[in-house]
C-alpha cells in the first residue's frame, strides 16, 4: 500500500477498489483489471458512455456528440477502454440510478458508466451528466453545465476531465486546445491551426498563404505567438483569438517563443547576423533583457513552472544539447550529455520533468529531471509539448500529431490526413 501512498492517487485507489469488487463475479473474470492504481496504456477500465437523453425534444444529435467527445478523450487518456456504443442494450433512458439496469451494463463488461440528459432552451444548453460505478450501482460523481449551444463540446471535455479526476485522482487535460502548424490548406504554405482534443474541431488561425511557424500560447490560452514570413523573414506576431487582432511583436526575426507562467514575459530566440540568442520581451513588444550572447545557436526557451529558470537548446558544446539557465543570475548548466543531437525542450507544468527530442537512429521523445540524471525514452517523435496536467505530451511523428502518456505506454494519434501537421503547442486548461 505504501507503494501507492501518493495523496493524489488515493481517490483513484478507493474508486478502483469499488470497481474491482465486481471481479469477484466469475462470469466477469474476462475484465483484466488488476488491483492496483490504474496506469495509462494498460488494459484500460471498461467504460460505457451512453448518449445523453434530450430532456426537452426529439433531436438526439447533441447527446451523441457529447458522448463521442468523452469517448475520444478517454481513449486518448489511455486509462480507459470505451465500450462500443453499438453493443449497448439500454438506451439513453433511464437516468435515475434506481432505474438504470446495471446488470445489463455488467453484461457488456462495463465497470463504469456515463449517463445524462440535456435540454436546449433557445440557445441555452443545460447538461446534467453522471458517472456510475456499475458494480456498486452508485454514482461516483455528477455535474450540471449551463451555457450556450456552442459550448456543447467544451462541456463534454470538462466532464471527461472530471471522469479523470474521479478515476485517477487528478483532473484531466482535455478541456484545452492544441495549436499546430499545417499544410492542410494546400500547397507549400504553412498556416497556424487550433484543434480541440478530439483532433476534429480544427480552426484555421492564419490565412496568409506564406510560412507561419512556431505557435505558443499565453497562459490564459487566448493569445498565440507565432512566426510568419508575411513581412519578409520569420518575425514574431501576436494573435488575439478573441478579437482577431494580429500584430507584430518585435522587428527582429526569430523562431518560437514561450510565455512565462505568469504571462508577463515572453522568452524568445531571435536571430541577428545569422546567430540566434535568447531574449525576454514584454507582451507589448518591449525588450526586457538579453539572456544569451555568444556565437552559438541558442533557441527553444521553455520556462520552469515557478518562472525562475529557462531550459533551452544550445550548440555551444559543438552540437545541440539542453541547458538550464537561472533567469536572474544568467548562469547556465548543461542538462543532457547522452547523444549528439538534443533539441526542443519542454518543461512540464508539474515541474518534475523536461521533455525533449533526441536523435538516435530516428528521432525520439525523451524526458529528464531538471536536476539531470538518466533520461527516459517516451516514444518516437519530435517537438513535444506538455498537457496542462503534466501527464501527457503532444508531439509530431511523421507529420502527424500524437498524444502520449509521459511514460510512452499509451500513444494515440490525434490528427492525420489532409496535410503535414507539426510543431504542436498544448494550451493551459480553458475556463
Amino acid at each position, binding site marked *: 500500500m505504501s507503494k501507492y501512498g501518493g495523496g493524489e492517487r488515493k481517490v483513484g485507489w478507493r474508486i478502483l477498489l469499488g470497481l474491482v469488487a465486481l471481479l469477484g463475479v466469475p462470469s466477469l473474470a474476462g475484465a483484466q483489471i488488476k488491483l492496483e492504481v490504474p496506469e495509462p496504456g494498460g488494459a484500460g477500465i471498461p467504460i460505457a458512455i451512453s448518449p445523453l437523453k434530450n430532456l426537452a425534444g426529439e433531436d438526439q444529435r447533441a447527446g451523441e456528440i457529447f458522448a463521442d467527445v468523452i469517448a475520444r478523450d478517454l481513449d486518448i487518456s489511455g486509462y480507459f477502454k470505451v465500450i462500443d456504443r453499438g453493443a449497448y442494450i439500454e438506451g439513453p433512458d433511464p437516468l435515475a440510478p434506481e432505474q438504470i439496469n446495471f446488470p445489463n451494463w455488467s453484461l457488456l463488461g462495463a465497470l463504469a458508466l456515463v449517463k445524462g440528459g440535456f435540454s436546449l432552451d433557445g440557445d441555452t444548453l443545460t447538461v446534467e451528466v453522471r458517472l456510475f460505478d456499475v458494480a456498486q450501482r452508485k454514482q461516483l460523481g455528477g455535474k450540471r453545465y449551463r451555457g450556450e449551444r456552442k459550448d456543447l463540446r467544451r462541456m463534454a471535455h470538462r466532464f471527461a476531465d472530471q471522469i479523470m479526476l474521479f478515476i485517477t485522482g487528478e483532473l484531466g487535460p482535455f478541456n484545452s486546445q492544441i495549436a499546430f502548424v499545417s499544410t492542410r490548406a494546400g500547397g507549400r504554405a504553412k498556416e497556424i491551426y487550433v484543434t480541440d482534443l478530439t483532433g476534429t474541431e480544427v480552426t484555421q488561425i492564419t490565412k496568409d498563404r506564406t510560412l507561419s511557424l512556431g505557435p505558443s500560447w499565453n497562459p490564459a490560452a487566448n493569445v498565440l505567438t507565432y512566426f510568419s514570413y508575411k513581412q519578409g523573414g520569420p518575425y514574431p506576431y501576436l494573435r488575439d483569438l478573441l478579437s482577431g487582432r494580429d500584430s507584430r511583436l518585435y522587428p527582429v526575426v526569430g523562431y518560437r517563443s514561450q510565455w512565462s507562467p505568469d504571462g508577463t514575459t515572453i522568452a524568445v530566440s531571435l536571430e541577428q547576423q545569422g546567430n540566434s540568442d535568447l531574449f525576454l520581451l514584454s507582451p507589448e513588444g518591449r525588450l526586457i533583457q538579453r539572456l544569451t550572447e555568444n556565437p552559438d545557436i541558442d*533557441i527553444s526557451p521553455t520556462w520552469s513552472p515557478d518562472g525562475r529558470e529557462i531550459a533551452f537548446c544550445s550548440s555551444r558544446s559543438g552540437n545541440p544539447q539542453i541547458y538550464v539557465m537561472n533567469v536572474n543570475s544568467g548562469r547556465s548548466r548543461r542538462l543532457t550529455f547522452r547523444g549528439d543531437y538534443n533539441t526542443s525542450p519542454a518543461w512540464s507544468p508539474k515541474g518534475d520533468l523536461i521533455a525533449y527530442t533526441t536523435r538516435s537512429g530516428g528521432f525520439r521523445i525523451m524526458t529528464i529531471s531538471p536536476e539531470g540524471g538518466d533520461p527516459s525514452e517516451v516514444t518516437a517523435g519530435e517537438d513535444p509539448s506538455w498537457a496542462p496536467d503534466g501527464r501527457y505530451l503532444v508531439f509530431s511523428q511523421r507529420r502527424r500529431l500524437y498524444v502520449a502518456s509521459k511514460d510512452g505506454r499509451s500513444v494515440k494519434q490525434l490528427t492525420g490526413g489532409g496535410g503535414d501537421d507539426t510543431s504542436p503547442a498544448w494550451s493551459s486548461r480553458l475556463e
Partner: protein
Amino acid sequence: MRCARGWYWRLGCVLLVTVFISGCPKKTPPPSEVGGPGGGLGPGERGETNLPPPGDTTREHIEHGPGEEGGPLQDIHFAYDSFELSSEARETLRTNSDWLRNNSQAKIEIEGHCDDRGTAEYNLALGAKRAKAARDYLASLGISPERLSTISYGEELPSCREETESCWEQNRRAHFQLLTR
C-alpha cells in the same frame, strides 16, 4: 500557360512577353534562353525593375516551388548538422562571386535550407548559420555585403521530398535568389 519558377524566371518571362507579345514558353527554358550571364538580359536593360516587397520571395517559393538550381548562381551544399563551407562550396561561391562582380547591380537573398531530419526550430537556426557562412565568404571575396541579404527557411521549403541520402543532401543547401539585377 505557366510562367516558370521563381522571381528570376518570372522577370525573364515578363520581358519575353514584352518583346514577342506571345506569352511565356510552355516548358521551363534553359537559362541561356532567357538570360543569365551572357544571355539576352544584361544588367541595366530594365533598370527600373522593382524590388519585390519583403515576403514576396517566400510567397513566390510557395506558389512556384523553392528556387532550384539552374539560375546564374549555383546552390552550395552542406554536411548534416553543419554550416561549414566545403572546398566544393567555396569553389562554387567563387564562381558565384564572379557573376556578381560582372552583374554589379544584382542583389541577392541567400537562403539557408536544411533537410527535414531534426526539429523545425533548430533547422531554422542552422539555416541561418548556413546563409551567414555563404554571405561572409562572398563578402570576403569582395562582394559588397549590402547586396547580400540572408533568410533562413530551415526545413520548411525542401527542394526534394524523398527520404534518401541524395535528397537530404540536395536539401541541405544555400540558395542564391536574385532580387534585382
